[in-house]
């Protein structure tokens, strides 16, 4: 379970998160929607400890992410992260991109790491791209490579930070399909997204962020069909 309590985050004077309370249960898919600058991505960075927080707490399976004694490198193995800029490692083949961290972080042998990489690359539909370098892959393929790379760490949770926002429109579908498969397999996911169709169809709950607070949260039917907050209504009217 991921549990966020009274979370405040500042970038210098900018108050980005203004008291977030949130729980994500095992197996749940939470989509986070909202305008740019509402703090959606920052929340993800606070959950895996890339960004520090100023107030409140984040717990992942009872581990206090921001406690000084927490081994973040170990914690992050449980939290797969996929970025908007897919960040494939250009000097490594698809296979090496996926196999490197299992080998040097999880401590698998070369053969074990390779097996994991093969499995995950096939999982995301890149079974024919093992020895290809990222610059020969399309954006959608690179993003799926990034998903495979995160999955290879055998995470309990997956955090998606606008995974499709930087893609050409015709490539969005293949990445969303991959995310859909993960959700169906029971992966616990927090998806910051601008894809309203995905949020509606795939999530168990949808959170609407407005200026650093959770303005409204609930099942997709409720958020999309009967939003209570004026802000949510206005936002949804704009993105439709």
């Amino acid at each position, binding site marked *: 379970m991921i549990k966020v309590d009274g979370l405040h985050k500042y970038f210098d004077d900018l108050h980005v998160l203004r008291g977030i309370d949130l729980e994500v249960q095992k197996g749940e898919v939470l989509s986070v929607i909202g305008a740019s600058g509402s703090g959606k991505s920052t929340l993800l960075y606070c959950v895996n400890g890339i960004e520090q927080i100023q107030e409140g707490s984040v717990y992942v399976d009872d581990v206090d992410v921001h406690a000084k004694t927490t081994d973040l490198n*170990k914690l992050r193995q449980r939290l797969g*992260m996929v970025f908007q800029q897919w960040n494939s490692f250009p000097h490594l083949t698809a296979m090496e991109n996926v196999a490197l961290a299992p080998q*040097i972080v999880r401590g698998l042998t070369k053969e074990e790491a390779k097996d994991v990489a093969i499995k995950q690359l096939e999982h995301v539909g890149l079974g024919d791209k093992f020895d290809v370098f990222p610059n020969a892959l399309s954006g959608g393929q690179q993003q799926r490579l990034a998903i495979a790379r995160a999955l290879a760490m055998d995470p309990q949770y997956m955090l998606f930070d606008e995974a499709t926002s930087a893609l050409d429109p015709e490539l969005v579908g293949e990445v969303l399909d991959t995310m859909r498969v993960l959700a169906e397999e029971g992966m616990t996911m927090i998806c910051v997204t601008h894809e309203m169709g995905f949020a509606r169809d795939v999530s168990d709950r949808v959170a609407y962020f407005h200026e650093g607070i959770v303005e409204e949260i609930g099942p997709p039917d409720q958020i999309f069909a009967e939003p209570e907050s004026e802000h949510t209504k206005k936002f949804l009217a704009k993105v439709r």
Partner: protein
Amino acid sequence: MFEYNFHWRPVFKSLPDLLEAALTTLQVASLAMTAGILLGFILAVSRMRETGLIYWFATTWVELARNTPALFQLFFFGFGLGALGFHLSPYLIVLAGLTFNTAGYLAENFRGGFEAIPSTQLRAARSLGMNPWQAYTRILIPQVMRIVYYPMTNQFVWVVLMSSLGMLVGYRELTGETQFFASKTYRIFEYFAVTAVIYYVMVKVILVLSKFCASRFFRY
């Protein structure tokens, strides 16, 4: 009256000595380059956090190395330190001067290399659970090396050519040796013409080797 008769015989007679001096040149240049890469890298890393004594020391080094004549830097290690009572051998003067100069230039190459890599690469590596050491050695530095490789090759060529300044502090590398024979025989043009060819060939070999190594090192 203005006719000049070329005399190549003395040059060819001392060709073995010149070639040996060429090896000396290559040796001191290689050593200066190796030390320059290491120190340049340390300087670049030292300048990443833009505050503190180390930052200022590294910055001063880079500024002096890049913005004063290389000859003056050699003179500093020769006459400058000499005036303070530290007497280095000609070999050490050349080695120290070239290293100082090269480290300064390479530090800027490395800095540019690191800046060319999106900061999100580090984030991605860390998000996979890599510690900073793993993220730098496995993800960032291999990419930096690719970016700085050809500038580094150029720098090495520059070091080989710059080592000719050694002549002015009494070091018998290729140019020093040439000068020695030239003034002994007065066949100045002939000697320096042949030496120019030797430099040219050395540089060409370096460039070809560098290209070959690149094709082995870099797969993408």
